[in-house]
């Protein structure tokens, strides 16, 4: 089960503020949708426990997130591996912090998720739509939390 | 929790976890191992029992708690005394079984099938048994067995 996603978020703050936000493990951890618990290990590693709830499927997923910032290209790559329901999900997501020129920022993101085990086998039909929503929601949270900050 | 089920006319009262599936309640609490388990997706039907003598149900997709206060018929309750039920006799006569693992479910599904459709055509029977899988017989002799029990074997219905 290999799923690709992409999208864009327009954020009403400067690129520097956005860059500082997306490279802060604690902030990134809290952007995970339905997050219950965030523990930062080091500047580039954070663990987040998220609640998954789609129809009958309810339960917790433990996500290990590794941040790979590339300051030169203002690009942040995230390697996310999650376990739960006896299954595993490995996601990669990358976002470019693009200066929109008018003091605001465009966050262009793309992601890929590979699900394995019972979640993929049985929940597969649930999963694709749900993973798409989760990743879109995560980057939506980035915009939302940054908009609040101003 | 306390669960009280009448199985083949005998009352069984047991203290079990709520998550106990009816199939395992029958097999492990009541010691009636004629009900079998063959899959984990409610597909195979070898766990079928009859509920309140009017419904065939997959006992792996029902909790014992749901059967509290109800009647269950399993394969062990089909023959009375020494005489076989006509369906049991028919499965034997028509070589409607080989390994025997699907047979209990096939028999009980057929009981309800015939109750609601006393003289089914061959396609009625094939449609009615489509919730019960068999890996050995290829179904042909099972269909003939149900026809024999319904008295429609060889009759163009």
């Amino acid at each position, binding site marked *: 089960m290999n799923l690709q996603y992409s999208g864009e978020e327009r954020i009403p703050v400067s690129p520097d503020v956005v860059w500082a936000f997306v490279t802060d493990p604690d902030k990134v951890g809290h952007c995970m949708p339905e997050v219950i618990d965030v523990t930062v290990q080091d500047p580039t590693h954070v663990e987040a426990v998220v609640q998954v709830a789609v129809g009958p499927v309810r339960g917790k997923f433990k996500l290990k997130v590794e941040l790979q910032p590339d300051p030169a290209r203002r690009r942040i790559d995230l390697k996310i591996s999650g376990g739960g329901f006896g299954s595993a999900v490995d996601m990669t997501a990358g976002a470019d912090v693009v200066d929109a020129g008018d003091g605001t920022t465009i966050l262009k993101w793309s992601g890929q998720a590979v699900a394995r085990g019972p979640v993929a086998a049985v929940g597969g039909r649930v999963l694709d739509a749900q993973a798409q929503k989760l990743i879109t929601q995560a980057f939506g949270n980035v915009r939302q939390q940054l908009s609040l900050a101003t | 929790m306390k669960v009280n089920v009448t199985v083949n006319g005998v009352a069984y009262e047991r203290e079990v976890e709520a998550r106990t599936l009816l199939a395992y309640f029958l097999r492990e609490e009541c010691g009636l191992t004629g009900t079998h388990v063959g899959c984990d997706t409610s597909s195979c039907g070898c766990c079928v029992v009859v509920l309140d003598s009017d419904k065939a149900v997959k006992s792996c997709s029902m909790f014992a708690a749901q059967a509290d206060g109800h009647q269950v018929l399993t394969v062990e309750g089909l023959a009375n005394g020494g005489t076989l039920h006509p369906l049991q006799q028919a499965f034997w006569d028509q*070589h409607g079984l080989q390994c025997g693992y699907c047979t209990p479910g096939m028999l009980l599904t057929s009981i309800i099938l015939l109750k609601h459709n006393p003289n089914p055509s061959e396609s009625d029977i094939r449609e009615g048994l489509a919730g019960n899988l068999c890996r050995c017989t290829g179904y042909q002799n099972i269909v003939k067995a149900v026809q024999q029990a319904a008295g429609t074997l060889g009759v163009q219905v």
Partner: protein
Amino acid sequence: MSTEPKSAGCLGVAMKRKEDPRFIQGKGHYVDDISMPGMLFLSLVRSPYPHAEIKSIDISEAMQVPGVKAVITGKDLEAAGLGWLPTFHGLDKQMVLAIGKVLFQYQEVAAVFAETRAAAVDGAEAVQVDYAPLPVVADPFTAKTDEVILRPDRENKTNHIYHWEVGDKDKTATALANSPKRIKERIWFQRCHPAPLEPCGCVAHFDSMGRLQFYVTSQAPHVYRTALAIVTGIPEDKIHVVSPDLGGGFGNKVPVYPGYVCAIVGALKIGRPVKWIETRTENLTSTGFARDYHMDVEIGATADGRLTALHVATTADHGAFDAAADPTKYPAGMFGVVTGSYDFPVAHAEVDAYFTNKAPGGIAYRCSFRVTEASYAIERAMDILADELAIDPVELRRKNFVRKEQFPYPSVLGFTYDSGDYQKTLDVTLEKIGYQALLKEQVEKRARGELMGIGFSTFTEVVGAGPSKHFDILGIKMFDSAEIRIHPTGSGIVRTGTKSQGQGHETTWAQIVGEELGLDPQNIMVEEGDTDTAPYGLGTYASRSTPVAGAAIAMAARRVREKARKVAAHMLEVGEADVEWKDYKFQVKGVPAKSVTMKEVAFAAYTNMAQNEPGLEASYYYDPPNMTFPSGAYVAVVDIDRETGEVKVRRFLAVDDCGTIINPLVVEGQIHGGLTEGFAIAFMQEIQYDKEGNNLNTNFTDYLIPTSLETPAWETGKTVTPSPHHPIGAKGVGESPNVGSPAAFVNAVIDALSPLGVRHIDMPITRDKVWRAIRQAEVLTT
């Protein structure tokens, strides 16, 4: 099947099965029905990753789960010298629980023992395993590049397991080059799974005498006892294997699985009985799969359809470990039967097997050791050749059949076919199906643009492994055995080294004894599966039971008869030489009125045996001189819905020749069951792995078992060409329908689509594939 019961004999009698009464009353006795006081339940933790290093296994949380007693991992087993299990093929070994890394998705990683079934699953869920994913090798062609070496534990660092070949490589190449006509096609027999309705499982228990009581779903209990003695070091006399009633096997219950070893280790370590029953998902994802042979088939022929040469090069996907349970000398099983029913002057077959990140196995699902792959390859290729030569596929087969007078026929790939009458069998099929009328109907339908297909498969099988000079498993020769004891009142018991999973041995073995000794089969008890009582045998698979154990029973019965003759001579007061066995009783030569029945002799054997040794029993260990070669002529008639791609099987006729038939009812039941499996394989079934090594068919929602509604009605017929070397002329038959039918189904579909120029579609032939083939053809023609 007409069943004319013989006067007094028991062969050929459609006797109702003696084992049915317990099954129809829910009194069958399967492994999961067993429970013992203090019994623990075992649940296995399995890897979601197809290829990954195991960084750590944390069992602390699992040990806190209420009811959990113990958790063991690969390291614990390795410390106890049980980390690896020799595979039946003997050239490789298999991890019991993953050590260092996992090599296929759903591989066993840890074993959790708990008081209840539920607690064991709760415990398994609480085990935390930290995986570091590694690159995945999801097919044998990628494996061939050796870019990623899967098995660093093996001596030579390559994914290539073995190269096997038979036949004359150069002469075949030359003959092919010089053949006026030639076809070449890659034919893939997809990975599928036998999925018996009862999953695998066991109960392991060390009794008060320290003896291992091991109840297990095994088709070969004696081989298990010997293998377990070798692996665990427990003396073989201290191991008692009991294989009770089995809910189907189809080859799935031949390999020894990690769950069995964990149950035994748990029972030993914790000192309580342990029950392990796998779920359907575990069965489909981790136990013995079948096939997965990519076969490049090349046939040469003259313009008028005389076969000149055959070359088959196979790339085989064996999964993470080479656990294909083939006889030692035959890494590619009986694939050499790929010349089929045809008299090829020269042929060459080769197989290269590779490791991949998939479950281990390969020999299962009624395959007679790869005969299913070989038969599918030749019967599919013959239709492609017929299409190339624009000859009726029936004519092409008829022109190249091995003729009746050529038997015993030495095939160019090393078999000696014992007997057959392919022409006659095909004639019965053509007549019964009404071939000429079907051809006429097809012409009319094609004129109206309707898609109707007729497909044949005239296969030959090789079953009954096998002669000791060639066949062994773990070094144990593949004989089989029978012990017969007749009681004073004329009833008796026969014990054999086989183990039925639904094939009706309790009836057919009794019929052989009844036939040989003139006794009533209703009073001949049959016992199999208990290694403390049954004589040593190699078990039931590859249609070997009747050819080998059936022969042993007949020979043992004849020894009983020779003993009985001495007592009869005493009773008839004549010399032994004057007594003859005729019409199921002993007669004085020339004085038929003076006779005694076996029942009377049996009583005398205990009460009036004079100087003879008392009692009436004998045993026989039968080493077959050759395999047996059953054959058949199958035909399928299909209609295709152009808009939905649905293939409707309108008719299917199977005419089989398995030599002398013991019980026509039982044989017909085997044919119905095998055809239904062939139908499922041809249209519905595949164990598919995606590029990331994910198994996509892990339960009965995605691995499809046909129901009574999709399954066609089966028509059957028979011809009888006895096996010359078998005591009662019988051949194996259980696997013929699964061997012969897939090609008939596919040939019929391709025949229906041939006006559109479609030449081949790999199984399973789904609606999407058919619809796409029709669309592509329409694009070309418009």
